[in-house]
């Protein structure tokens, strides 16, 4: 469904991605792991159109989206839940969720979807009129996750969804993600919580200083000594 072919990205003059390739099949759950600064977030930004790559090619469902606008990419069914919450701080929780389906035409389903988010994360429901910027860190993260799902995407890119979440919410969130994946949404997820990510996913990539250094099924990765030592915090 998604093909990333040898893309290169840079911030100013600094090369961050050097020929990254990966692919995600329809209905798959793919994890992307790697150290801080390896370029995981940058890869997601390239896919969602926030930072168009300077080289290489990205296709989605056969269509070239390498230089498409973020809006066009969203309309094609890719949602991106960005790193670091990024809620709209002066808008209410409800308005933030509404922004999630800004491009959707079927407004009548909107309130159903919103209720689904509130069901999943009741704390957001209690706070629906509170300015998002005053939520606690974890609450903001939940809101960002809910908001990404409001567009009913075909493919959703999660960038460290568990960041700042308490264990119970981590668990809830991962369950949620697995559930939408089971219901047919394709998932590409970046996680520092590598063990959990590798356990959940179908397939995974390891990104190291700007290129893919390893690729494989989740459980294979877990058992790779290099991964264990560098990313899972296990002494080998």
């Amino acid at each position: 469904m998604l093909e990333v072919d040898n893309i290169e990205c840079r911030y100013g003059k600094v090369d961050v991605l050097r020929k990254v390739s990966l692919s995600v099949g329809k209905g798959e759950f793919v994890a992307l792991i790697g150290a801080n600064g390896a370029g995981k977030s940058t890869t997601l930004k390239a896919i969602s159109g926030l930072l168009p790559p300077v080289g290489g090619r990205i296709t989605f469902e056969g269509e070239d989206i390498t230089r498409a606008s973020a809006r066009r990419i969203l309309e094609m069914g890719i949602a991106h839940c960005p790193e670091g919450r990024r809620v709209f701080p002066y808008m209410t929780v409800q308005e933030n969720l509404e922004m999630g389906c800004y491009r959707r035409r079927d407004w009548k389903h909107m309130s159903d979807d919103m209720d689904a988010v509130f069901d999943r994360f009741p704390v957001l429901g209690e706070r629906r009129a509170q300015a998002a910027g005053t939520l606690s860190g974890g609450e903001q993260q939940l809101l960002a996750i809910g908001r990404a799902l409001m567009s009913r995407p075909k493919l959703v890119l999660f960038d460290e969804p568990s960041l700042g979440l308490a264990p119970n919410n981590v668990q809830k969130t991962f369950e949620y993600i697995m559930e939408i994946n089971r219901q047919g949404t394709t998932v590409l997820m970046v996680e520092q919580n590598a063990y959990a990510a590798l356990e959940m996913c179908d397939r995974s990539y390891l990104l190291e200083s700007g290129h893919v250094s390893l690729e494989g099924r989740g459980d294979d990765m877990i058992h790779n000594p290099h991964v264990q030592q560098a990313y899972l915090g296990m002494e080998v």
Partner: protein
Amino acid sequence: MDQLLQHLLNALILGSTYALLGIGLTFIFGIMRVVNFAHGELYTFGAYMVYLFSVLLGVNFLLSIVIAIVLGIMLGALLEWVLLSRLRGADIDTTMLVMIGAWIIMQNAEQLIWSGVAKSIPMPFPEEPLSVGGVSVAWSRVFVFAVAILLIVGSQTLIQRTRLGKAMRATFQDRDTASLMGININMIYLATFALGSGLAAAAGALLGPIFIVMPTMGNLAVVKAFAIVILGGLGNMKGAALGGFVLALVEELGAGYISSGYRDAMGFLLIILVLMVKPTGLFARTERIG
């Protein structure tokens, strides 16, 4: 008693015009965070366009006002496109400096085109004022009041209720994330700046005929507009409107009962006092630390 009523009435009318100035700048400064010193020039532009169409070209007065507003929107869009679109993500001082440049250029261009001599625009309203009891108000001002209220309510609704308004707020709170929501960022920048400019031109088009039209007319107007936006709390339409009325009330009563020379000073003192008590304006946004 009549004098007090007259002052209160004057304040109400003046307040509506201040509010009008304030809401235009709320779009550009309050929401977009562009310290737009050229705002006063759009105000001046609106006034000169009414002069051009209604006095020099003999177009109907009301139609001239509409034309002036439309041209103000177009000029605003042009400024955004030429100057600001290449400064996306630049910090607030950078865009401020560019707008100061635009201000200097526009004001001197006006000077060249229209000369420094003030122009006066007649209004097609009955000369006899509307008098009730001991108080009177000119029909022209009643007209300005009505239009201003209409524009204020319209802007408030636009920003708070409509999809476009929400997209505007979202865009200027977090540009990248807004584009992830599928918002066409460039279109929103353009629309916001153009709308704010249109409102500035509207204020000029309405007030120019009441006062006089000259190239420097925007200078005090722009300072007051900033003050009003801040008084109300950045980005808050209702706040800006209320700020306009409060400012007018303080100025008018101060001028009437304390000293007319210190009229403007009272307004600025009020702003200082308000900010000392509420450092982020009357209607502060809630922020959090940590």
